[in-house]
């Protein structure tokens, strides 16, 4: 087990290097640091001196990959690639354009993001699986048809609609809760409730339908027939046998996203004005803050890879046949 884990983590390293190289070439080769400086300083009336100064301030005034002027190790280390990209492996994300430390910013913004993402994830999972099980229970009846049609309809509606519509109905029409904002502690509940509800609502169609196909695939198998032949009730068959056996495909889709919960949701957070990582990213995109976007890309892929490892581990827990070697 431990050996397997170590191997998995080692395997993740080349992938992370790949991600790093990719973002590096996106951010520094396609557009040079000069271009970025010009963007930041405004298009007009930019003097070469101003560009040089900006580059120096933000540490972009070095060669890309190889510094011929330096001595020894610093031939490689005194470059943009090493300073800006390779350092991310040590969680050193540098600073954003307004001079704040990105790593610290990420730490403080993680909690609000989690406060939204975690309840959305858990409540959502519960509702989707219940809904899907119900549809499986009433499979091939009018109720099932209705459920599936509802799912298709729900998944055809843009996610933006749920957010805008929900905000309008709950906050403006009924005055249930504030439209946007966030507060720490217990106060946060009233800010969190609506985004969570909308988040759950937003993917109820696609997810329930997906779980339903998983359950339907399981229910056609032989062990289900055996269970029924033993005289078990349909409910018992569903919950004791089908649900357990459908765990592997469910876990495959679900565990991967758990680490990504830290990243928060781009849309929800920016609409509801929650100071989480999602809105941080959006602000950075709008302000063209490359340092932050770069850091978020790297963080995101790191979390995704962590999710993959977690998925493998979770298999061993639900399925005794799976051995990690």
């Amino acid at each position, binding site marked *: 087990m431990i050996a397997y884990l170590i191997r998995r983590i080692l395997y993740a390293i080349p992938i992370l290097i790949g991600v790093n190289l990719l973002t590096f070439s996106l951010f520094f080769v396609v557009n040079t640091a000069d271009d970025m400086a010009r963007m930041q300083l405004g298009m007009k009336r930019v003097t070469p001196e101003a560009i040089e100064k900006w580059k120096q301030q933000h540490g972009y005034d070095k060669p890309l990959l190889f510094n011929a002027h330096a001595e020894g190790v610093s031939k490689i280390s005194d470059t943009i690639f090493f300073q800006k990209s390779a350092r991310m492996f040590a969680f050193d994300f540098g600073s954003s354009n307004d001079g704040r430390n990105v790593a610290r910013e990420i730490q403080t913004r993680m909690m609000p993001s989690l406060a939204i993402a975690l309840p959305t994830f858990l409540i959502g999972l519960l509702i989707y699986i219940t809904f899907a099980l119900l549809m499986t229970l009433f499979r091939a009846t009018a109720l099932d048809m209705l459920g599936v049609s509802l799912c*298709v309809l729900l998944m*055809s509606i843009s996610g933006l609609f749920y957010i805008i519509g929900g905000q309008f109905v709950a906050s*403006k029409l009924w005055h249930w809760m504030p439209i946007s904002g966030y507060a720490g502690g217990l106060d946060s509940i009233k800010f969190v409730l609506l985004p969570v509800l909308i988040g759950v609502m937003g993917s109820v169609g696609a997810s329930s339908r997906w779980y339903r196909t998983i359950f339907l695939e399981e229910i056609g198998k032989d062990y289900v027939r055996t269970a029924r032949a033993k005289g078990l009730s349909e409910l018992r068959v569903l919950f004791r046998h089908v649900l357990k056996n459908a765990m592997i495909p469910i876990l495959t889709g679900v565990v991967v996203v758990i680490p990504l919960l830290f990243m928060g949701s781009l849309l929800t957070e920016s609409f509801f004005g929650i100071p989480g990582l999602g809105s941080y*990213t*959006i602000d950075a995109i709008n302000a063209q803050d490359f340092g932050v976007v770069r850091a978020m*890309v790297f963080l*995101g*892929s790191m979390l*995704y890879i962590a999710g993959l490892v977690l998925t493998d581990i979770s298999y061993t827990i639900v399925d005794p046949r799976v051995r990690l070697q």
Partner: protein
Amino acid sequence: MIYLLLATVLAAAVWIRKRPHLVLPWQRVAKGSVGMVSLLLLSLFVLVGLLDTLHYRAALPEKSNGQTVYSAEVLSVFDALAKGIKSRTEKTYSAPLAAYLYAKESMETSEGKILRDYPRLRYGGAHLVDPQRELLGDVLKRTGIGALEGLLIGVLLIAVSNMLFHFFVKFRTVSSSTGGKISTDNGISIFTGAMKNKPCKALLITALLIAMLLGVTANLAAVYHVLGTDKVGQDVLYLALKSIRTGLVIGTVTTLVMLPFALLLGIAAGYLRGWVDDVIQYIYTVLSSIPSVLLIAAAVLMMQVYIEMHPEWFETSAARADLRLLFLCLILGVTSWTGLCRLLRGETLKLRELEYIQAAQAFGVSSSRILTRHIVPNVMHIVLIAVVMDFSSLVLAEAVLSYVGVGVDPSTMSFGTLINSARLEMGREPMVWWTLAAAFGFMLVLVLAANLFADAVRDAFDPRLNRT
């Protein structure tokens, strides 16, 4: 370019027709009423999109030296068709089917006093003398007439197409069978015959409903703003119809970009295995491990900088917007091929172990021939299903990306930009809801039709679903 695509689809259809085992699943699609109805809706959208793609530059009146000068504004055939609603712009917001502006304005009355009231619209309901009294009656009258007209035209069109089809069939039977008794059906009896057939019935009813709806809209749009006007007084119906093209372009071009990647790399990885497989797997793991929105955002940001740095490349702002749109498709394609690639790799791995491939190998058939003759045709159903399924999600993704600020150029009309500009209007008092409603409504119909069609295609092609 888009017409090339259309030609390919038609050629593929002709090619498929000749092969009975390929016709079979399509016939299954044709037998489901849901699939056919959604196909009809989709083709309607595609028609609007195609009309909007035929661009031209209007020639300005000739100058004295006889040289023809073209205006800078690029128009499309659709613009010409919808010239009425395009040119009739109001001052600012107006509600659907309204005769008054939505904002109060200071007006001078005939006695010279200044009065703050809702002014009459320049075009909406301009023919009415006393809108407050006549509006409802006029709208109802036009609705009725429009519905009737639409119904009539619809019935007429269907009857004519039926007759043509019937004539065609008769022609074929006459030429193929010598002396067979020619039935003396006419168009109407085929019409009644079709009513007994379930999908045909659904299709006919939908077609008639659409015809009625179109009739009503056309009739009302002649004198009103059916869906109101936006902030600068543009007709929302026109904007929404224009947005269809952007959605379609993103859906199709992205798929086109994605397909070669996914097909080539997926099959190569599955068939060749070894280090090729390792490299390709590495590439798609790296790409898919970056959250796609972030990757797209990063790429689009970089592209923006790039475009700003080279303003001299673009003659018109429309060209720039178009390039941005294409580039967005490119990025979306590059980020979205990994899923299909993984599927294809798995399927190819499975296929290459099957007996018939091994037999081909034993006979000394070259790898390239095995790939093109045996493997590619046998993974096509996966490709088709994936392509149709992806389409709707791409249309939805466009709206989200445009909101995030990494979508299409703000000057391009799309559902995303429409929603984005209308988002803050919800906060106005009284609320301006029609722009949002129109954007979401059109998007819902488009995506729903695409989803339902995708389901029909999947049901027909997926070999895992057993059917009797």
